[in-house]
């Protein structure tokens, strides 16, 4: 298990690898879908 405390350190390694492969923008889009699922409804309720 990777401790949730270490998510930034994990992302850093993912970003470095995917950036070297030219795949960072597509990864951001994939992750943003997850954030949308968890956050969008809450944001809408706040408006």
């Amino acid at each position, binding site marked *: 298990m990777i*401790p*949730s405390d270490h998510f930034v350190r994990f992302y850093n390694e993912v970003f470095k690898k995917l950036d070297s492969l030219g795949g960072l923008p597509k990864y951001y889009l994939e992750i943003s879908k997850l954030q949308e699922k968890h956050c969008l409804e809450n944001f809408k309720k706040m408006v």
Partner: protein
Amino acid sequence: MLRYHEIGELAKDFHGTLNTTINYIIKNYGKDTLKKIFNNMGQKVYKSIHTKLMNDDPSELIEHIAYFFNRENADFYLKVKTDEIILTVRKCPAIAALNEMGLPVSPHFCLSTTYLNEAICKGTKWKTKTTKTGAGSCIQRFYKEADNDTK
């Protein structure tokens, strides 16, 4: 002594992003790329644990497991012997978090544990083996090279 020793609130939604990231990388780049990422994680982020294992000192690995599995409120049992460390995870907090978020658990999710443990042990006298015992439970074993699987 731990290199990282966070306190305060946990951001358990990270486990969801990890789950998505594992699926994404395997689908688009394959397991080898995922393994390279965890290799860097194990040997750079957890450099002090790895370096100590290189010097045959598992103390920080033991402390790391105990601290973070307690911090994540895992149901686990840690048994430490001279040449063997056995972590029995009865309820994995990462998989529990995915279930709580309603996210389907990636069939590859536990590679994060397998690959990370292998990376931490790589090039040392210590070996590791993770055996799934159920959905969200496993046994992670670390043992000295001379103490092989025949035991």
